[in-house]
Structures are given as C-alpha cells and as structure tokens.
C-alpha cells in the first residue's frame, strides 16, 4: 500500500520539510527582502529591484568591509593552519602532562565567541591589560599602547583573538590525520632521515596534505564570515578598521534597520564565498584526495 516504490517522495518528506522550513524558505524570503525596501521604521515594503544591491555595492562601507574581510582571511587561514599543525605535531609526542596540555589547548574552542572577545579586550586594555603591563615592566614601552583604539592595531588584535579561537579545531583534525599515518612509515623515516624538518616535509606532510587543504579552505571561509568576535570586541571600530562583511550585514539590518540592504549584502557575501570555493577547488590537484599506494 504505502510502499516506497509507489510513493518515493512521501518517504523523503521527513527530511525535506525541515530543509524547506529552515533553509529554503528563509533563503527565499531573504532574497525577496533584498529586492524590496524593507526598513523597520518606515511603513510599506515597495519593490525596488536591484536598488539595494547597487546602493550596497557602491557604498564606502562595503568597499572597506570587503577589503577588511579579504585581508583578514588571507592572514587568518594560513596562520590557523600553520599553528594548528605545529601544535598537533608537538602534542603527538608523549611527555609528562601531555593529557593536561591537550585539554588546555582545546579550551579556546569551547568558549563562546563573545566570552573570548571579552577576555581579549582585557588582555589588550591600554591601562589594565596584561600585554601593556608586561611590555612596560620589561621597559619595551614607556606609555601604554592603544591596541583596540588604533585602527591598524585593532585589526591585528581581532586577528590574534580569532586565530586563538580556531587553532584547537585545526589541532584536532590534524592529530586525526597524523594518527592515520602508518607507524612503520614513521619509524623508517626516523631511521633514514635525521632532519626533523625533512621528515616532516617528505614523509609526514604528504600524508596529511589533504587535511591541510581542507583546513585551509574551511578556515578561509570561517575568517571571511566572522561576526561574533568583531561585534563583541570592537564593534567594527575604531571607525571601520575591523568592520568585516558579516558585521556590516548586522549593522545594515539591526542598527540602520534596513533589512533590504542587509539581505542584499548577505547575498553578495554568499556569491563571493561561493566564488572563493570554486576557485580554490579548481586550483587543487586532481589527485589530492586519492589513496596513496
């Protein structure tokens, strides 16, 4: 009677309904919003075509946010991966307290972004922060550095905080990749190759390079779409120094109450992220994910 062969679509409904309800419908509604003037304080939602898109793309805020996001991604992704791999290689060794160290390394990952932001605000505080305190104690500086109030430095601070929160995930995945390496291969490499760097580059890295690429792509996207750290740490400031695209979407929608512009900007960001994924995928060697003989 209700066989899967006669009514296959019905059997897909339990999966389809949530997808439509929580993904397809909101995306479609957001696209509709992007084509209308939806400002919370003004009545009516007239159709404006692509006016929101043209206004957003031509605004100075967009150009700044886009450049900031691109720069943020270019620095954050490689840093997270390099530091994550380095920490993973270190944690692979057995030493006294290694279990405790592994737990501590994972701590930034479990903290919500807002908590991490508050933590780093105090680290970088000009008067009460530990960094200025240490630098003044060793005599490196005579006056406090305005870390979060100087545009260039504020960008670096947010970058540091972001990398700190993302390293644990890179460590975990890299350690999983390292664990999959044949132990006999590693033993042979230890015997045949005295240089640790050569062991890593010629023996270990080829085994984990697929994971490294995945981490690079993932962290590039995460960095490009970062919002919570910026919101809680600098509010996009000083000025627009740390305004990233995701934060600008929030500002357009919830500070300027222009949901039309915010939605338009969101779709622009999706388009850019999609282009990024396609470009990276095309650049990858075709045999990257093949099994090694």
């Amino acid at each position, binding site marked *: 009677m209700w066989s899967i062969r006669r009514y296959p679509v019905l059997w897909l409904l339990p999966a389809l309904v949530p997808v439509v309800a929580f993904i397809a419908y909101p995306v479609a509604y957001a696209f509709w919003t992007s084509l209308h*003037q939806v*400002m*919370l*304080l*003004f*009545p*009516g939602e007239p159709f404006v075509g692509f006016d929101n898109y043209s206004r957003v793309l031509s605004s*100075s*805020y967009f150009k700044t946010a886009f450049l900031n996001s691109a720069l943020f991604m270019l620095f954050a992704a490689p840093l997270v991966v390099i530091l994550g791999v380095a920490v993973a290689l270190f944690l692979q060794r057995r030493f006294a307290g290694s279990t405790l160290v592994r737990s501590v390394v994972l701590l930034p990952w479990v903290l919500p972004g807002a908590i991490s932001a508050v933590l780093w605000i105090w680290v970088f505080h*000009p*008067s009460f922060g530990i960094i200025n305190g240490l630098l003044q104690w060793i005599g490196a500086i005579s*006056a*406090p550095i*305005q870390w*979060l*109030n*100087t*545009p260039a430095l504020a960008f670096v601070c947010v970058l540091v905080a972001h990398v700190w929160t993302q390293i644990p995930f890179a460590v975990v995945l890299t350690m999983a990749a390292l664990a999959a390496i044949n132990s006999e291969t590693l033993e042979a490499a230890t015997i045949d190759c005295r240089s640790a760097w050569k062991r890593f580059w010629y023996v270990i890295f080829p085994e984990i390079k697929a994971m490294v690429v995945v981490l690079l792509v993932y962290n590039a996207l995460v960095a490009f779409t970062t919002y919570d750290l910026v919101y809680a740490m600098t*509010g*996009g*400031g*000083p*000025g*627009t*120094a740390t*305004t990233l695209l995701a934060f600008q979407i929030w*500002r357009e929608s*919830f*500070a*300027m*109450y*222009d949901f039309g512009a915010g939605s338009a900007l969101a779709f622009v960001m999706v388009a850019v992220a999609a282009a990024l994924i396609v470009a990276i995928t095309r650049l990858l060697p075709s045999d990257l994910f093949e099994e090694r003989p």
Partner: protein
Amino acid sequence: MSLRKLAAVAAVAGAALGAQSAAAQNITLEFVVWNYALETIQDNVRKFEEANPGIKVNVTDYTWPDYQDSLVLRFRGGTQTDVLYGGQDWLPAWASAGWVAPLADIAPEGVIDTLSKDMAGFALSDVTYDGKIYGLPYYADTISFIYNAKLLEEHGIEVPQTWEDVMAASEKLKAAGIDRPIVYEYNQELPNFFDAFVAQVYGRGGELFDEELNAVFDQPDNAAYQHLEWLREAFEKELVQPENHESNIITTMNTGKHAFTVVYNYVLAAMNNEAEQPLAGQFALARMPGEAHSTLGFAKFYAVTATTAADPERAEAAWKFIDFMAGQPYTVAKRWAVENGLGFGQLPLLQDAEVKEAWGKWVDMDVLAGQIESAKAGTWTEWTAVWSAYFRPLLASAMVGEIPVEQAMRDGAERWNMLREQFANR
C-alpha cells in the same frame, strides 16, 4: 444530606469561587527598561504594587547598546509591551510608526497639561511629537565638561573656556608628564557617542541642521565640521585616552592621570562618590567650552504603547504606573536624583532641600544651574536614530584619522538627505 441541601451548598460554593476568581483578575503590566540600576527599578516597582493591589509589573531589561534594536523588534513582532523607557532620539520614529501613544489618551483630562508646566524646556521638547506629549521624564540631563580641579591647580591651569583652551591645557599637561589628559567615551555603537559630539558643537554655538532640516554640518565653516577637526587633532597629538564605556571613565579619571572628559552628570556623581572612588571630590563641572557655553539637554521618559492605550483596562493600569513613577509629587524622580545623581526634568525638584543637599556633595549647583539654563534640545526626526547608526562610524573614523573629516561629513550629509527624502516620499 438531602438533594435540596446539597444543591444549596453547591450554589454557595460556586458563588464563592466565582467571587474569588473575579477578585483574582490581576493585570500584569510588561515594563521594558535598559539595565541601569535594576535593583532600584525593582524596588520602585514593589512599592507601586503595594500601593496598587491588583496590578503587577513584570520588568524586562536590555543592555543600553541593544535597547533600541530590541524595542523595535518587540514592536514589529507584537511582543506584549505596556510601559517602556523611551528616548528623545527614538520618539519621532516610534510615534510616527504608531508604536507609542500620547499620554493624554490614557491620563485623566488636564493632568498632562498640568505636569508639562513643571518640565524643563528641553525635556518638554524631547517628550513631544507633533504637538502631543508622549512621555513623562524618567531622567533628564545635560552632557557636561568635567575636569580634575586638583590637577589643574597643581599645574597652574585655568578652567578652559574654549576648545582652544582645552587643547592648550592638554598640551601643557602632556609636556608635564600627563600622557593623555583627555578621556573620551569612544564607542561608536553607543547612541550617546553622537549625543556627546552634538553637546560639544552646541558649546561652540553651532548647529548640524538648519530650520528646514537640511544638513549643514558638511560645510567647512560649520561649528560641527570645525569641532570634528579639533577632535581629530587631539587624537593625532595623542592627547586623548579612549574608553569604551562611562564606567571605565570613572575608574580612569580616578587614577589622577587625566584632566578632562565629557560625560553625563551622573557620571560626575559617581566619580565624586566618596564611598567608592579614591579621588572623590577632585572632579568638577565647567560650562561646556565654546563661545556659547551651551550643551545638549535631553530626556528619557516613560511611555505607553499604542496597543496598551487602546485597551481600557490596561491603559488605566499603565497610567497609574506612569503617574506613580513620574507624576507629582515626583517621589521616584527625587529618589533617582538623591541616590544616583540622575538628572530630572521636573523643575520643582531643583528647589528640593534633599536634592540640593545630596547634589551639593558632588557638583557646584550654581554652575550646574547655569549649564541647565543654556542647554538645548537636539534635532530629532523620524530618521535621526537610523541616520545616527550610519554617521557614528564615520565620526569615529575621522577622529582617529582613518578617513578625512571632509569625507565623513560629506557622507553623513548625503545619507541624511537620502533618508529625509525617503521619509517624505513614504
């Protein structure tokens, strides 16, 4: 027991239950606030509830930076909201959108007119939209120029009268080892970041808009343009210590390493709080520097939603609550003034002996009275709040030299004109 007796007992029991149900029909008002001194708010609410059995008040609070966004979403989402804190910069938009109602809709006839006669000029202006009064003041204040009197005395510096004096004094202090003499609440996400800028412009005798609501601040000879250049210069010379919240300003000023700041008067009360601050008593208020010595006066107020005003039962309860919190004899406003140093919009309180005694501990009342007298209300339109969210990052960028002052003012003016046109064409 016979059936007849049983029926009689049941009837009596049913009547008693019904009477009890009628008496138990309380109204619970939803009161929405930002989270300043929540314990005091809750205590005031308790007192109201004791005096008004049958009316309960449920307090919901949001942080100050998120308050406006949260209220707009409550209004649009239809979340039950009866009485709320309102702000002078939000009233035109909220009233225009039909979210809040004139108090005359819920108050007995003539009462609002009577109460309005006790209000300070800028407070009355701020609670009025389209000729109707939408709120009674919860808190009214001016933004003031504060200085460390002891520090100035030690370095032989007179109290600055102009912004040029402030710059000269700051440079002299920096040369004497006071690294960043000016502490500035530098947080573009706070609505008062714009208010503080306006206050300083008013000190110079300037205006950002003309009588037709055209933006004029993008003209190089405009006082606002010149003051933004002044701020940029102060930041460039490293005379400014930015702090992202007034609570940090209290602590920072109490290190004795800074001389000037621009904040609300209640922050001065906190700075001079002998019980909590090490340098209490050193800080004083001066008239806002500039040719006019004027400043921004503003009022935050209790308002009622249009939905509540349309419900007779809830409207009556809401009026009782608002009258308790802000009506005569202004008991709650006096409590805020005496305990927290919060300013008030009700002029009779200026003559109150308890207020004078409490305020005399942290401010020179004569100087304050002079500042209040010269204070002006801001230009608040239906699009000001939205525009301010766009303009504040531009101000912040220009201050730290990220963009030229000319660009900040030009972009700000363009956006103002665009929003004005959008509103006019709606």
